[in-house]
């Protein structure tokens, strides 16, 4: 897969620059990383050309024509919705505990922990309720206060996130990597926002 990426595999400088080109054209690199890439591009015509080609490629993909639904889409949809009832009870206003929960949990983590289907939610809750005490007990002296963030151990979160995360394309490494990546993404998300 990676073979075609490197026109000059002897040059490790090329390799390092090319690994970063995609994020470079998105302006996602740190100032220092971007400077390193630029320094290489200034000295290496082959990588400079790759950078130009990549930039153009991205622009072409982003400029592909967009398509929308046909004219009768809404009428057809509402005809179908007439025969459908939303399932589940109407949500009640958030209780005090839920509100605290909301503030204590980063958005990314809560989304990752929320499986899509009703069955998934039930299974997730049961597994989490089952897993938490076990994991907490293993960590000995931590108490399980409903408010203190320190009571929710990283280990417990890792476990729950790993259960909730599954790759629809059946990526083999997903189960192991998911927990780490989602936790990491909480930090990276704020970094990314700064970068934009």
């Amino acid at each position, binding site marked *: 897969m990676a073979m*075609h*990426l490197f026109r000059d595999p002897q040059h490790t400088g090329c390799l390092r620059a090319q690994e970063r080109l*995609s*994020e470079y054209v998105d302006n996602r690199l740190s100032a220092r990383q971007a400077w390193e890439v630029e320094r290489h591009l200034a000295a290496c015509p082959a990588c400079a050309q*790759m950078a*130009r*080609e*990549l*930039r*153009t*490629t*991205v*622009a*072409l*993909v*982003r*400029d*592909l*024509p*967009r*398509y*929308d*639904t046909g004219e009768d*889409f*809404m009428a*057809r*949809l509402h005809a*179908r*919705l007439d025969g*459908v009832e*939303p*399932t*589940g*009870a*109407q*949500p009640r206003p958030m209780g005090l505990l839920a509100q605290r929960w*909301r503030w204590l949990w980063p*958005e*990314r983590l*809560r*989304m990752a922990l929320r499986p*899509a*289907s*009703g069955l998934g*939610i039930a299974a997730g809750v049961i597994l989490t309720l089952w897993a938490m005490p076990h994991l907490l007990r293993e960590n000995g002296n931590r108490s399980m206060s409903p408010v203190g963030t320190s009571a929710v151990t990283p280990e417990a979160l890792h476990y729950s996130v790993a259960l909730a*995360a599954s*790759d*629809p*394309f059946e*990526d083999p*490494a*997903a189960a192991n*990597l*998911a927990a780490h*990546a989602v936790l*990491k*993404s909480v930090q*990276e*998300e704020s970094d*990314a926002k700064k970068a934009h």
Partner: protein
Amino acid sequence: MLSAAGNVMHADSALVLRAQANDRAAFNEIVLRYKGRIFNYIYRTIRHAADAEDLTQETFVRAYQSIRSFQVRASLNTWLFRIATNLCIDYVRKQKTHVPAESLSCAADESEQDAQRDIPDAALDPQRLLIDKELTHRVEAALEQLPEKLRTALLLYDVEGLSYEEIAAVLECPLGTVKSRIFHARAALRDRLAPYLNGMG
């Protein structure tokens, strides 16, 4: 400080709350807000206009059915793309077992219907590259040749404008996997398009 994304999410939340209380007009508004993006994404994924329309319908039917289990603080955008993605995955799996190969180039057709589907403001932005039909066709052909996983990540990122983090939530993938797929998708596209890019950019 409210970001643009924050404002969108706030407006979405209000609509979702109303839709959860059986307000069909609010759900209608949600559909109008998202159907273009969802359709474009599904169509670019499965490349069959009629089926893409059906899957877009199905996306919103499922969203309507389970709207009450949707948590208002989450991203409606991410949720809808996740439903759509799962429908596409099922569809592609079925196609692989039943239909060998169908015409994949609806987008290149000059038919009246397809011409009407073009969103006109594409031509209004002076910054945009002037792309001839030939090059558009090559980009689409190169996209089609990408493995599904790479194409999906690229479509969500570069065509639909989702963030790495949103895509990780849509695909239920680690963030590192998302980054890697986008990187490899772009590299493969650049590789295939390079012969046609001389003098551009």
